[in-house]
């Protein structure tokens, strides 16, 4: 064995071990819940359902198109949804953000009462008592918030609470969508 080959044999495993260590190290502290949605880049799935406030009103994904918007998955049994609700009210009123709700695995009267008590930031909420729409969207749990463009293409997804800290990332994309549209 030549000298260089021998040196290579001695050094390369160390480099390998070091690289592996670095790779594993950068995984520490990453939130395992933050898996990227496989819906990103795709159009909203087709669905048809009742709205929360009126069983006679049927809506589909076509009713969410035309302008960029947020689709927010919520439920009355979900404490984080309560925590983010006031923030949703704020951005809907002050910044005129269009928000559609998906009322996920919930009871109708409880959900209606919740919107009466806490305010309604949604253009409408789709009533999804058995999670069928949730499965189509790839919902893991409430709350989740999708950003869609005017054509209904999903651009980003936030798992967890929407608040002052998490909104800016979606907001900048939302604003550039608005700009591109005008």
């Amino acid at each position, binding site marked *: 064995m030549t000298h260089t080959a021998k040196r290579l*044999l*001695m050094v390369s*495993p160390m480099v*390998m*071990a070091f690289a*592996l260590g670095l*790779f594993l190290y950068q995984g520490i502290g990453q939130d*395992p*819940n933050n*898996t*990227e*949605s*496989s*819906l990103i880049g795709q159009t909203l799935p087709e669905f048809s359902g009742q709205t929360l406030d009126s069983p006679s009103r049927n809506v589909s994904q076509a009713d969410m198109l035309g302008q960029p918007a947020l689709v927010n998955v919520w439920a009355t049994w979900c404490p984080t949804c309560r925590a983010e609700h006031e923030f949703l009210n704020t951005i809907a009123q002050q910044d005129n953000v269009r928000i559609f709700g998906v009322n996920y*695995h919930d009871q109708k009267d409880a959900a209606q009462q919740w919107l009466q008590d806490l305010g309604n930031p949604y253009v409408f909420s789709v009533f999804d008592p*058995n*999670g069928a729409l*949730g*499965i*189509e*969207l*790839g*919902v*893991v*749990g409430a709350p989740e918030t999708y950003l869609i463009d005017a054509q209904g293409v999903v651009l980003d997804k936030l798992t967890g609470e929407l608040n002052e800290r998490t909104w800016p990332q979606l907001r900048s994309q939302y604003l550039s969508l608005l700009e591109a549209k005008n």
Partner: protein
Amino acid sequence: MLKSITVSLLLGFMSWASPLLQADVGSYEFAEPEMAQRFVDLTTVLRCPKCQNQNLADSDSIIAKDLRGQLQMLIKTGQTDRQITDFMVQRYGEFILYDPPFNKGTLVLWLAPFGMVLLGLWALWFFGRKTTGQGAMLTPKEQQQIEQLLADNQTQHRDLKND
């Protein structure tokens, strides 16, 4: 003491929990036993998206229940295993597969074990080498020098003792 308490507690929980967790899977009814078997197989290899380290059969979370219901429906409507896993991956990503395919994203996952075996073999070789290489061999002259030094040392030592 503390350890034995912990162990017995854990064992207690396990024996109490496992029949409970599996109970739900049996309650899904199928016309043919072959379909029921596929249901059991698929709930084992599909991961619960919410709970990370449990499969669909194990988990009691809302989403796992929904997906079990969906799975039952898909099996009953005659979908193949391949169609069903495609359906799940389309919505929840490859994350949902406990046996992920080999691609760019899973490259490290699949290759790292082989790399680690190689590292281990290398370590065996590296630390198991005999150190009687050229470095340990002395020329006759060096050998002579060493003997001289040792002899000097001994004389010195003896002198110190005699003082």
